[in-house]
């Protein structure tokens, strides 16, 4: 009897350890590496929003600008595709598109731009160096190129997509190389994750 009891406890202990192990992810796992979601910015409806407004949602953050010729539209298209695949689960996801070019990205321009990709996409901007502070918190940077004759200039920015869980904890990082399938897979896993 004692042996059976012992075995039972051992099996339970094993199950406990197995459960507490971090599930392998296809994207880069950044749990514990980056700080929790925290910001105070203006949304495209000219309302001040903070991270608290998105608690309970799985939040996807991307830094870009509406004049971006390639990286931003392709990333947002891919994210839209992922949300499409997620079906009903997509309701639990918000994509925050944070403008790194507030000078040119007006609120109306931002709204028009993000609406193309779907209702889950929200453009955020800010005055002064708030954006710089926000990007610094996530250790990404951006810079401006020299303006041409018609005032257009290039913006160098990060191609990373950060994913925060329902509690605002940094969890996943997708890069330009990540496939739609992998983002979908990990995002679904994260949304379905039981509350801890």
């Amino acid at each position: 009897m004692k042996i059976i009891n012992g075995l039972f406890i051992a099996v339970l202990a094993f199950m406990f350890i197995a459960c507490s192990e971090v599930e392998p992810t296809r994207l880069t796992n950044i749990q514990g590496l980056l700080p929790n979601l925290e910001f105070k910015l203006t949304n495209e409806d000219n309302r001040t929003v903070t991270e608290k407004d998105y608690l309970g949602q799985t939040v996807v953050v991307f830094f870009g600008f509406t004049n971006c010729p390639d990286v931003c539209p392709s990333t947002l298209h891919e994210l839209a595709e992922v949300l499409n695949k997620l079906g009903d689960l997509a309701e639990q996801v918000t994509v925050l598109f944070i403008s790194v070019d507030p000078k040119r990205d007006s609120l109306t321009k931002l709204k028009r731009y993000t609406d193309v990709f779907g209702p889950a996409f929200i453009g955020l901007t800010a005055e002064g160096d708030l954006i710089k502070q926000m990007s610094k918190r996530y250790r990404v940077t951006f810079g401006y190129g020299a303006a041409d004759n018609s005032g257009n200039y290039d913006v160098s920015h990060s191609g990373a997509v950060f994913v925060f869980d329902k509690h605002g904890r940094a969890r996943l990082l997708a890069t330009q190389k990540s496939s739609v399938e992998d983002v979908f897979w990990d995002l679904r896993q994260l949304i379905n994750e039981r509350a801890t």
Partner: protein
Amino acid sequence: MEYLMPWEFSPLFLVIWLLIAALYARILLLDKSVIKNATFYGRIVSFYIGWLSVYIVWHTYFDYLSQYMFWVHRLQHLVLHHIAPLLMVLGGVGVAHKIREVYLPVWRIIPSFIRRPCELCYELLQNWLVAPLVFVGLIYLWLWPNIHFSAMLNKNLYFLMNFTMLLDGLLFWWLLLGFGWKGEERGFKARIIMLLVVLLPQQLLGAYITFSSSVIYDVYDVCGRAWPISPMADQRYGGIVTWIPASMMSVVGFLLVLRRRLNYQKKICL
């Protein structure tokens, strides 16, 4: 002015660094017996140039560039691990006996359960077989792609990386040029071996990064670069910095060890 402001203000670093400058200055003022010749001033200049260069690469706009450009990051580590500690040790060797005299009693006040482990660690790191392995090992460790990725993303890990590089740099160059030579004959051979041990792995790693045909460190793509530059060019420059100036520092080390040897032999002949 903007370029002099720290990108990430670190009170811990600032306190430690100011304290070191102050403690060194205090030793200079205390040592009244010293002859104020060119060597004396040379030491002070050497120490403070080293001290200042660490401050510049760690606590100014330079640190921002190091976080967002691989080759600047390599340059930062060249200063933190090779050049600045060497200059500081060269400045400190002449007054080392005085430092020991003044600060050893202070050190002895610390309770032994804290002091002893520190002393044991110090002894281990100052072992002539361990020190070169730690010196090269740290370079490899922080350049291991996964670890490098995490270190560049996490603020605390990043601090730890720079801190360990600087501390190890000071310990290594101190062992190489400090006064702890156990027997001039054996000490000389051990030091030549140490320099050889650190030379080759650094060259191999530098050459590997320089000639790699793919991007090894993608964290700079993820976080964005400080200014537009192709990832391969950035990596190649970084590889060259790891390879050539770092090996040159070993040559400088050789010359300094040889100079010490010659001075010693001259002394014997007299």
